[in-house]
């Protein structure tokens, strides 16, 4: 074999190998992790999948006994059938997250000690709330990639005054300190590590080095003796490992599209879904090579959009009651319910439930021939 032929054979082998790359399943780590990152992913999964008890710091208020209780289907990091309760007060144009009444996450369970002390099974619903929201547990796949998208990319998609007159007016939410948000159904939280640390506290009542104080009971302090575990209830290493697991979860590889699916993908753009569900985003710099300068299927712009009065529930940050962040479309093939509160049993119902800025796209979907509607749904089910 001469040199040129040899190189051609090597190139062919590489291209065949790339084409035959094993699809990433839900729960798989990103491709290209080094050994240390793979190790942290595996060890982080153990913490993520831990069950906490009151003796390990659980509660005294909580929604779940571990991350994996809610993010479990079809693999750890996936979705769950739990539905939690949030509440805020919308006062004029300002949103009150009801911190003095226990915060906007209304925990649905109490430890035996708290129940014995106060006789309650859940956190009292805040009397000042002007709205209640139900929230399903979303998949947390690709969250590390979403975290690595530069803020400038998100802001570049914003058009709050609809200057291009397309009926879409995406705008960023902002956290309490003014930073641009991107995580959560209202895009309130700016960074993945903060989302994870906050979730330990708000969802499980687990204090940690980033959140050293327990949630209050409707704004009142925890009764003496109810939570004897000293703060923080997990250490920095456990927090960092959990963050590593979530950060390094890959987006599942979309299924191969058939003819209908390809037609559906064209229609997704043609009828305007892609105006908000932006098909791909690109990450910026990252200390993790597998997250650095990667283009990935996100199907979100990470911005808030007015979704109309039928979906409206709570405000949060700058998000008004009818504003929601464009949901990343990930692992729809495994989803059993849709929209932020799980009210839609099918993708068709979810699309038809869109309003506000999505009214045009929804109506164009409804106006499609049945075969085209089915093709679009087939495309979504490939994700």
């Amino acid at each position, binding site marked *: 074999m001469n040199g040129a032929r040899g190189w051609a054979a090597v190139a062919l082998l590489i291209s065949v190998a790339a084409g035959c790359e094993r699809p990433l399943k839900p729960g798989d780590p990103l491709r290209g992790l080094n050994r240390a990152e793979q190790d942290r992913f595996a060890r982080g999964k153990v913490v993520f999948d831990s069950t906490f008890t009151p003796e390990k710091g659980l509660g005294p208020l909580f929604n779940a006994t571990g991350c994996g209780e809610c993010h479990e289907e079809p693999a750890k990091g996936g979705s769950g059938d739990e539905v939690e309760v949030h509440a805020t007060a919308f006062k004029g144009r300002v949103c*009150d997250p009801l911190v003095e009444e226990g915060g906007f996450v209304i925990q649905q369970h109490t430890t035996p000690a708290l129940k014995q002390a106060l006789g309650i099974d859940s956190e009292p619903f805040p009397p000042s709330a002007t709205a209640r929201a139900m929230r399903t547990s979303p998949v947390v796949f690709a969250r590390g990639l979403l975290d690595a998208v530069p803020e400038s990319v998100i802001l570049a998609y914003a058009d709050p005054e609809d200057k291009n007159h397309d009926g879409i007016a995406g705008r960023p939410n902002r956290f309490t300190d003014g930073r641009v948000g991107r995580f959560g159904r209202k895009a309130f939280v700016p960074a993945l590590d903060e989302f994870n640390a906050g979730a330990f506290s708000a969802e499980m009542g687990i204090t940690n080095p980033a959140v050293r104080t327990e949630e209050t009971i409707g704004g009142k302090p925890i009764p003496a003796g109810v939570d004897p575990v000293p703060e923080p209830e997990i250490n920095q290493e456990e927090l960092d490992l959990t963050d590593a697991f979530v950060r390094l979860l890959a987006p599942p590889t979309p299924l191969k599209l058939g003819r209908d699916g390809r037609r559906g993908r064209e229609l997704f753009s043609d009828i305007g879904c892609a105006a908000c569900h932006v098909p791909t985003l690109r990450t910026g710099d990252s200390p993790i090579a597998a997250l650095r300068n990667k283009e990935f299927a996100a199907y979100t712009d990470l911005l808030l959009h007015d979704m109309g009065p039928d979906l409206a529930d709570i405000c949060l940050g700058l998000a008004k009651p009818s504003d929601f962040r464009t949901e990343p479309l990930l692992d729809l093939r495994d989803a059993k319910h849709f929209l932020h509160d799980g009210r839609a049993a099918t993708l068709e119902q979810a699309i038809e439930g869109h309003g506000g800025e999505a009214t045009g796209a929804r109506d164009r979907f409804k106006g499609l021939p049945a075969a085209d509607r089915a093709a679009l749904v087939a495309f979504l089910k490939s994700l």
Partner: protein
Amino acid sequence: MRNLTRAVALTAILLAPGAALSAQRELPYTFQGTVRAVKAGALDLIIGVGEAVRVVHMRTQSATAVFGEGASIALGDLQPGDVVRADCRLTQAGLIADKIELKRRAP
């Protein structure tokens, strides 16, 4: 993140018994958060880490400098929903704001 961590840690201090507080020196703290309430001589800020949101109560004095939109402003010019940065010190009497800077107006 460091400021947020310190902020939440401080909340722990503020919630702790007076005996623990009295042991503190006048430590400097900086918070950036959303104004929840502003009254004569007092400011409440909403801070947080992700979904875990907390309130920091601070007192102001006549010497507290308040800036916003390129000029000196009055504490009473701040409104709920405004984002401010507050440079404070923790004293035995609680948290005292020395400087408050308006970063973003409420919508």
